[in-house]
Structures are given as structure tokens and as C-alpha cells.
């Protein structure tokens, strides 16, 4: 008898809750009608950023592709005419990417960055293979300041030997003067 009573109370309470919510304003955000702003550090589609001088930051050092646990990044590095190293082509297969962000952690030049943008569904899986022109953006992403070549000490348009940050002027090898 007691058990039956408890059962009825439980059902009634459940229905009461349901009934109450029927007349409440919904709190579900309807996607895609409503798009919530995600935090800047949310991890989704990957971009290749540019340094403050507007040059490609990526030096194609292969660290991201080495760090990638699903091997979805491939590229080919070459030398530019002015001695700068860059990616001749750069490909990310988003069909395979797990958005773990290890590439961003590995990147020594702040070039590769994950963005909050995630709406990349495609019917043709080949469209998920992004080439360099799909990835390259014209801003610095989350890091506006860093320019690798100002520190690296290799000769490029950014600076000659001795002209980089914290560098002494080149040694004169033909003089014995201190």
C-alpha cells in the first residue's frame, strides 16, 4: 500500500515538473538560427597567420606535422628568393583532424593557430582537404606581435647579421683589434 502511494507521488511529481516547463520560456539556443560567440581559445578550424609585417609566418619547419597525432598536416618547404623559408604548399586534411591543438603548441613562429570557427561540414570529403590558400589569413590571429625573423638571426629582409633583437654586430674576422 505504502509502495503504491510512493509510486503515485513520484509519477505526479514528474508530470508536474514537465507541466511546469511546458509554460516556461525555452532556454535552448537554436542553432543555426542563433550562433553563440565561442571563446577565443576554442579549438576548431586551423589557420595560417601572418606576422605584423604582413609576411607569412609559417617557415615550414615540419614541427606541426610531426606533432600531429593523426598525421593530417603535410607540406613542402622551400627557400624563397630572399633566403626566407616558407611552405610551397601546405595541406591540412580536416576529414582527419581531431582539433587537439598540438600543432599550435608545437609551432615556433605562432603561424598555425586554431580558431573557434567550426562549421565545415561537407558532403564531398575532398572539400575537407584544405590547401594553403584556404588556410592562409591576412592577420596575426591570437598573437599580433611576434615576428620570428626579428629574433632568428638569419639574414632576410627583416634584418642583416647583427641587426636582430639582442644581437651584437658581426665579428670582423680580418682584424685583431678587440
Amino acid at each position, binding site marked *: 500500500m505504502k509502495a503504491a502511494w510512493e509510486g503515485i507521488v513520484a509519477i505526479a511529481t514528474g508530470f508536474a515538473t514537465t507541466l511546469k516547463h511546458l509554460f516556461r520560456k525555452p532556454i535552448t539556443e537554436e542553432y543555426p538560427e542563433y550562433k553563440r560567440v565561442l571563446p577565443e581559445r576554442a579549438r576548431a578550424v586551423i589557420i595560417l597567420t601572418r606576422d605584423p609585417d604582413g609576411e607569412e609566418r609559417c*617557415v*615550414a*619547419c*615540419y*614541427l606541426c*606535422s*610531426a606533432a600531429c597525432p593523426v598525421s593530417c598536416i603535410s607540406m*613542402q*618547404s*622551400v*627557400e624563397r628568393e630572399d633566403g626566407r*623559408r616558407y611552405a*610551397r*604548399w*601546405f*595541406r591540412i586534411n580536416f576529414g582527419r583532424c581531431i582539433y587537439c591543438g598540438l600543432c599550435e603548441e608545437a609551432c*615556433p*613562429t605562432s603561424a598555425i593557430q586554431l580558431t573557434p570557427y567550426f562549421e565545415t561540414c561537407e558532403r564531398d570529403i*575532398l572539400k575537407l*582537404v584544405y*590547401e*594553403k590558400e584556404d588556410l592562409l589569413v591576412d592577420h596575426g590571429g591570437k598573437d599580433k606581435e611576434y615576428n*620570428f625573423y626579428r*629574433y*632568428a*638571426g*638569419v*639574414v632576410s629582409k627583416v634584418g642583416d*647579421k*647583427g641587426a636582430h633583437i*639582442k*644581437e*651584437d*654586430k*658581426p*665579428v670582423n*674576422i680580418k682584424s*685583431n683589434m678587440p
Partner: protein
Amino acid sequence: MPKIIIDDREIEVPEGTKVIEAAEQLGIMIPRFCYHPALGSVGACRVCAVKFLEGPFKGVQMSCMIDAKDGMIVSTNDEEAVEFRRNIIEWLMLNHPHDCPVCDEGGHCLLQDMTVSGGHGMRRYLGLKRTYRDQYLGPLVQHEMNRCIHCYRCSRFYQEFAGYFDLGVMQSANRTYFGRFKDGILESPFTGNLSDICPTGVYTDRPSRFFGRRWDYQRSPSLCINCSLGCHTTVSARYRQVVRQEARYSEAVNGYFICDRGRHGFHYARTETRPWQALIEGREVPTEGAVRAARERLAEIVSSGGPRSVACLGSGRSSLETQAMLGQLCQKKGWQGPSYFMDKSLTGKAKTAVSRLDPELAVSLRELEGSDAIVVVGADPINEAPMLALAMRQAQRRGGKIAVIDPRPIFLPFDFNHLPVRLDEINLYLSALVKAAVDPELIVDAGKDAIEFYQEAPSLEIVAASLQEKASILAQELRAGQRVVIVCGTQIVRETTPALAADHAKFLRAAKKQAGLFYLLPQANSFGAALLASSEVSFLEIIQGVEKGEIKGLIVAENDPFYSFHDRQRLELAIEKLDLLVVLDCIESTAVKKANVFLPTSTLYEAGGIFINQEGRVQAAPRAYLGGISIAQIGGGDHPPRVYGSDIPGGELRAAYQFLSQIGNGDQIEDDDPTRRSLLRWIADNIPPLAEIPPFDELSENGMRISSSNDTSPQFAVNWQEEKEKGKGSEGPLEIILTDWTFGTEELSSFSPPLMKLERKPYASMHTDDAARLGLGHGDKAKIKLDEGNLEVDVCIEENMASGVVILPRHRLLEWQKIKSLPKFVRFEEIEKVSG
């Protein structure tokens, strides 16, 4: 033999072993930058510090500078030593630039490894970093001095080990600089080793600059096939192309280093013009169709003209498998050949070299380093086989004396004595030297042959007056030497010389010396070719057969007679006369363009193969990658095509022996292994020296040295009278000697763009006296009248060469193939000055 305890483990090592080496034998790798087994210790980097707890030394000491002694107890992981090493690494990193992402050494950098393993993660130094200006060092080496940690490995290798002095140390203290006095191409042909030994990225490989990281490369042990020494290499491939080649340590052959020709000679496998598609009469066809066409058309020729109307030409640059498949086909089908050499004289010389290489006389390249007297006969080490010069340099550094008997203007990076004599005099000079070097009393029990040989051999009297002094010094040096090695070339010498070199080595051995014999052969697998070659048919005889109409079909496997045959006009006429020319090759050659049926073959890197080097060492290289047209080429430099599929473009290539098997036997090959296995069985059954050949993958790291000597070849059988007769008459016409250069003459490496930049413009060398008689000056252009037209070439006048000869490089840019028969002589009137 001192016993030493390192990290609680005892080891007994030979006297004189450094502590760092003893630890290595225990499997303990003490960090090191400046120490290198080939270069020894200098104690410059201070990073191999360990703590000596007991024994003659106490406290923290450099393990590379201290010999292991009895009673030493060493700790490598003592707190004090670890702290010391950590500080050293931090100091070395003070000025090191922040450029690892754009440094090609990144990923296999010793400094990077040590920094990470030493736990140095954050820079504490806040001052300014020292910088240097870099230099242009040529097309092979990229210089980036900022990265230097001053270990001195480069200058020690370049100057002490290799004997060149245009790169070295400048300045002092904190400003020490490694480079040249001024920008310029490095003179040494061993510069690629700088990038191998540099523990950081000061010297990096320039042709593969910025291409990739070592962890991405398909790395595989391989062999160098750009000369007959068979040096060991490690080949790196990525995205279906070979990217770079490095030296691989070999106890028996090359040690730690290789030459630049070997290092950068692989580009033939990745040139854009490499033929990928089978052709019939110049039209692209599917591979199967071309194979079928070749088979059917050969069958037609055989049915009308009999099996002798088909001939086979192989080469010394093919693997043993391909060479043997030609042999098998000729044996089975009754075709003519196989021939692997252009003329009978070369066949004869190679066959002599192979059959006279007694196992007790044969020395390896590494054993040569231990000899105390070397006589080089008719060989130009730096041009024909550069690593031989490096090995001789080591012998010279240890006090060995070196003599060279050769008509060419020989340069070697060390002190040696050169007897520049004509080819006809080489035999006499060699005999005179050896005779003078031997104590007559020692040979009394040497055997009748040897004694007679000794008595009849010419003495030093035959030596020209101008060379008397030199020759007598040389004879004395030889007399003092106990481990004497005769190095004999086979390219330019007369047919009798290789056998005579062997006779002399035997004779020296009879005279109680530890004599050795070291032949140089023309190509990487000429040894295998000599084992297999038919002694009746050389390529010249094939041409004669074609001219007579006896031969209607010719199969050319991995050879380009248009590159190496001395009479192009005759060759062209003969080729036109053929009904069928089947060419199998992996390079874009003239023969490929002339072929009726062409089949594209895979390279050593794509198929692997067995090669036998000049000392009879059977060595195998496995396949490095699967082959196919590289991604760089199919993508036009840009990204790979956006398509799905598992086909490899250009993946229809097969090894030459597989195509040959298909053509000859008609088998369908699904897998390469059965063909290779049956082929190896055939080799074991038909070539006695190779009867014991193990399966491909069971060959040891250092290969297997085979003994191919047979006693049937004539020994101590030289007609001295005839030799002396030939040796006279220096007033005769000038002999044209066709020779090799380090860069630009070897067939495969001449496809290499970085090496092309190092090639010298071809020139003819002449002795001062001859040039004076002709009125030629240094740098003049001369016109030499050859049998089939004139050859215009620059003249280089040299003092240190024989008179009576003109040296012409078999250069890819020189059309020297206008000679009817070899040896070729020209009269003085046939050379004239064109312009000054």
C-alpha cells in the same frame, strides 16, 4: 690490457683506448661534440666530462683526453659531472641563434639533442649574442657561422684528415671563425662530409636545403655506384624522390666519409627528364605492350637469322642481377654476348684484374690506410675514385710513402712522388722500382719463376735522366716499406699492366714483404661484369657483327654506348643498320632516343641490387623507396593533385633484370622475389666464385669478399724485350689518353645539377715541351685532328705530366667520340692553334 670500471661495470680495453671509447663499448654514450672516432680527441668542447673516483686522475676530467688505465673508477652520472656538463651546454648555447625552425640540422642536431637531454630549457643570459658573417662555400655546402660551437671538427677534417687547406680557423678566443679566407668554392671533393660531421648546423647540405626533416625521410642503407669502390651510404627519400645521401660507416670500405661525387651523384634518379614511359619507335605505349613487342620482334629475328643474330650489351653500372640475367639469356637462347665493355682490351684488363686478385694479396680500402708504401700505377685516385685518395692520405699521415707512375698531371692532397711517364713506359718503371726495392738475398727461396722474373726485369738504368733522382728515392722508400700496396688502374693502362702489377705484388711477397694489391675498375659493378663477360665478344665485335649483317637485334641494358664508345659515327651507322634495338635504362640517354623499343627501368634506390666492388666485395643495397614520379613533379612544384587513388604515377617501372626475364622467358611477374631467387641460384651454379653467395638479405653489413683468382692466367710472363722496345722512341706521335675527371665524366653523376656547377670546362692537358713545339700557350684553343673530324678544345699546359701525350677528359660536354680505334696517336701536324 687495462681494466676500468665505468658506472659500476668493468671492461677490459686495449692500451691507449680513451675512456670515452671504453664507455661506448659498454653502451654508455658520453656526450661529445669535438671527439670523433676518425678525427680523434682534442678536448675542445668540454662536454664529455666525467668524474674519476679512483685511479691516476681524480675529479672531473675530459673522458676523450684520458687513456683508460688500470684501477680507474669512473662515474658518468656523478652529480658534479652532470652539473659540469649542464653548465657547458648552457655556455655553448649563450650565443647560439634562435633559428632551429629554419635550420636544416634541426631534427638530427647533436647540439639540439644535448641541450634537451641536459635539461637546458630557458635562456638565462640577457646580453647580446655574438654574430658572424657567412661565406659562400660553393654549391654543396651552406654556411651559417652563428650556430658554431667551436668544436674544430670541420677544420680538423678538412686540413688534417683530407689534406686541403682552403678552409680553416681564423681569429681567436670568443671570435674564432671557421671558413675560408674569402668567399669561394671549396677546393676539396670531400666537402659534403662537413655537413655530416658538424655537430650543429654551421655546414648543411645545400642541394637539399630546406627540403625536409630527417624524421620524415625514408632512410635506408645503400651503396654508392659512382665509382668502383662501393662506398656505403645512407639514402634519404621523401615524396617519391631521393633527397640526400650521406656517408654510412663501413669498417671495410669507406670508414666514416664519402666523396662529393658519391654524395650528390644520385640526381639521375630524380631528374624531371628521366624517362618514365615505355616507348615503341618513340611513341608512348603501355609497358606490357612494349615488352610483348620486344619479345615478338626478337622472335622474328631469331626465326629468320638464328639465335646468333641477337646480341646483348650490359654495363658495369647495373646490378649483378641485371648483368647475370643477360648472361642467363645469352646462355639459354644462344644469343651473342653478353658484353659489358666497349672493347676487348678493357674486357681483358678487367678480367685480368678479377682473376689475378689473389685473396692473400687483395686489400680493402681500409687496409690500404695501414700500408707504409703505396705504388700507384696508371691510376689517378682523386679523379677516378676520390675516396682512394682519402685512404692514401691516411696512409701518408701515418708515415707511408706514396709513388705514382702515371702520364697524367696527378694531383693528390698530400706529399707524394710522381713519375710522369708514357703508357708504354709504365711497366718498365714499375719493374725497375720494384726490382730496386727488393733485397736480392731475400728472394733466393722465392721460386724459380720469381727469380727468373727478377733477373730479367729492367733495373733503374732505364729511368730517364730527369727522373733518376726521384726514382732512386722512391726505390729506397719502397725498400724500407714493409706493407707495400700496388694500386693499379685499368682504364688507361696497356693490357699487360694489370697482370704485371699482380706479378710484382706476388714478387714483393716472395721477398718477405706484406705486399698488397688494389685494382681500380671502370665502374661500380665492373667486377661482376668481368666475371660474366664473354671474352670473345666486346661491344666492338658486336658492331662488327652488325656491319657484316650478322647481328640484327641488339639488347642494351643500362648502358649508353653513345656516351662511352669512341667512334660515334660508326656507332650511328651500325645502329641504323639494326632491325631492332631494345634499350632498358633509367636515364635519358642518346641510346634511349634511338631505341626501337624502350623500357624504363628502376634505379638502385627503387629496386635494390647486388654490386661487387673492385676488391671482390659482394655488397647489397636494399630498396629505399617504392619509386614513381615524385610529388614535386606531378604537382608541378605545388601541392599533390586532389584526387583519391592508390596508383603510383610512373609506378610501372621494373628492375632491368625483370624486364629482361619477361622479354627472354616470357614470364609474367607478379612479385620480384621468385625471379631474383632463381637468378641468384643461376649465379651460384654458373659463376664459381659466387657459388656461396647468400640470399640478398643475409649478406652481412660489410658484404662478403669473394675469391675469384684462378691460376690459369699467365704469371710472370712478360716479354721484357718487347716492353723495352716499346718504351723507347719518345719522338713519335702524341698519344691521346682519354681519362676521367672527378666531376663531369662519370655517366650517372653527370646528371646531377649541383655537381654540374663544380665541373671544370673540358680542356686538353699537354706537357710544356710538347706545347712549346706546337706553339701553344696556356688557355689557347687548339684544333686536334681526329679520325672523324676535328676537336676544338682549350689547352692546359702542365709541367708535371709525361711528354708525348695529350690528356682528354671523357667529359659530357666534349665531343671526343671521333676516334676510330684505341690507342689513338696524333702527329704534331695534326694539332694546330685556333686562337689565343
